[in-house]
């Protein structure tokens, strides 16, 4: 079993398979980032509050895979859509990313307007 031997921010030492490693960490309310000779690892806080967590409305929701700006919305509420349809285009650092529908359905809600900024993980579109 791996063991945490000591923790004096920002440093910590761990033992894995009888070997000791020294690392550096940064903990926020949402995650902890660990730096070790083996690399860098992020772990989300399991108790973290979910972004826009409104139980049922999250069902069938599409979330932003990256932070950025909504540059184009190709659908409106009430539209019938097919799996693979492009619903929205996000842009971050001058890179475009298409949000496509994971299945057939009807657009129940669009949470943003063109030109608005979104955080990673924010709900974009709800498909019923």
């Amino acid at each position, binding site marked *: *079993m*791996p*063991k*945490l031997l000591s*923790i004096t*921010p*920002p440093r*910590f030492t*761990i033992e*894995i398979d009888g070997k000791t490693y020294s690392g*550096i*960490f*940064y*903990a*926020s*309310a*949402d*995650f*902890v*980032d*660990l*730096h*070790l*000779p*083996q*690399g*860098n*690892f*992020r*772990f989300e*806080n*399991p*108790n973290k509050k979910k*972004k*826009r967590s409104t139980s049922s409305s999250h069902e069938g929701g599409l979330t932003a*895979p*990256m*932070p*950025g*700006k909504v*540059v*184009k919305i190709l659908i409106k509420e009430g539209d019938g859509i097919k799996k693979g349809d492009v619903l929205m*285009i996000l*842009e*971050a*650092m*001058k*890179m*475009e*990313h298409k949000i496509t529908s994971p299945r057939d359905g009807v657009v129940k809600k669009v*949470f*943003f307007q063109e*030109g*608005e*900024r*979104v*955080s*990673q993980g*924010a709900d974009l579109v709800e498909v019923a």
Partner: protein
Amino acid sequence: MFKKILIANRGEIARRVIHAAREMGIATVAVYSDPDADSLAVKEADEAYPLNGIESAETYLDISKILKIAQDAKVDAIHPGYGFLSENASFAEACQKAKIKFIGPEPKALKLLGSKVASKKLGQKAKVPVVPGFEGELPHGKALQKLAEEIGYPLLIKAAAGGGGKGMRVVHKAEELEEMVAGAEREALAFFKDKTLFIEKYFENPKHIEVQVLGDEKGNLVHLFERECSVQRRHQKMIEETPSPSLTPALQKEICGAALKIVKEAHYFSAGTVEFLLDSKGNFYFLEVNTRLQVEHPITEMVTGVDLVKAQIRIAAGETLPFRQEDLSQRGHSIECRLYAEDPENNFLPAEGSAAVLVEPVRPGVRIDSALEEGKPILPFYDPMLAKLIVWGENREDAIRKMDALLRDFVLLGIRHNLDFLRFFLETKDFASGKYHTHSVSALMEKYQKGRETMRQALVSLVPQFPMRAAASPIQTLKSGSGFSPALEGFRNA
């Protein structure tokens, strides 16, 4: 020599130019957008003026705002860095009119070589092989489909005024063509204010070789050898090295000679880079000339001992090149790794966060060109590149080991980035043998993730023992930060 120059850029390259100018006894003026108000470049410059805005178009691309500041601050010259206005002929012309020297080639050369269409013709005129493709404005509808079939799939669509992979798309089949063209046009318009595209044959496993050139206004021209930039993802470079492991001495001589032929034909001066594709049979094709300082210029500086930024400034001030071709040689080997705020485990998509913990190691043969500052937020407004990690070694193997050690010890916590992927790639057999190509990255993703799984599993049980409440989340930090509120208005942070 100039007494004062303005740097029309941001981030690490603004700092690079500020430092070079300072060493030459030249005063510096920085300009900045709202999110950059607290950046290192602003603090390090002798003077700094706001561009008032967030988007590139209203800040670092706004010619009249920048020229107004340059005139008010009474600068002699403007260094454009790379990206933004660096290859913009109208900007160079506007500088000329305002009697401010543009540190770069003349507007005529920017116009000629900035158009990929015209520069391709130039390559043919200089009798250098070029990539098969269509040289002209793209048609639409049926004519576009017909043209695509004539060149043959797969195809590459590029922004005519482009660079750095912006506005680029690979099209594998006819059904994708129209949508890809539309997306590339939007991206080209957003970044270059010019939606002209062009189309060419796409090579499956090519090597990207480029040659650095320098010329003065009197017509003296030299090359500073090649750089290999074959490790790319989404057509954007990730690792560069020089000398290239793919060139024999004979091929190196040939390709550097071809580069000189092209810039000679264009009567080029200042620093420039001639890009080539090298196929698996050792044939090379001229792609384009980048009429600016390249992101990866440091590796050339490491092996030749020439400071390219200072050379650009001296050339712009009318000085003669202080060396001839026979004075230049490559010593040792240099590698650059680009640190991006991009998450390899999330398809290399941009990430946001902060440089909560930062350790940039200083050691022999290591150079870090960075704009990171510990405790400061990293927001997705401009380029995802955070820093360049550069090493020099006596030979390639020494340089690889040095980079591996640097990547191991470089610490950046608070944001997801590509450091581990860079290190993984450097350790692969493909990289060690030099047999990697521009599409190696996507082929290796699975292996990379598998390799990390064991360690991740070992660590996961320890996570609850770390105090995950100590600091606020990066965005909350930002809200209480100074001068940042305008940038955040659009954020929906529920």
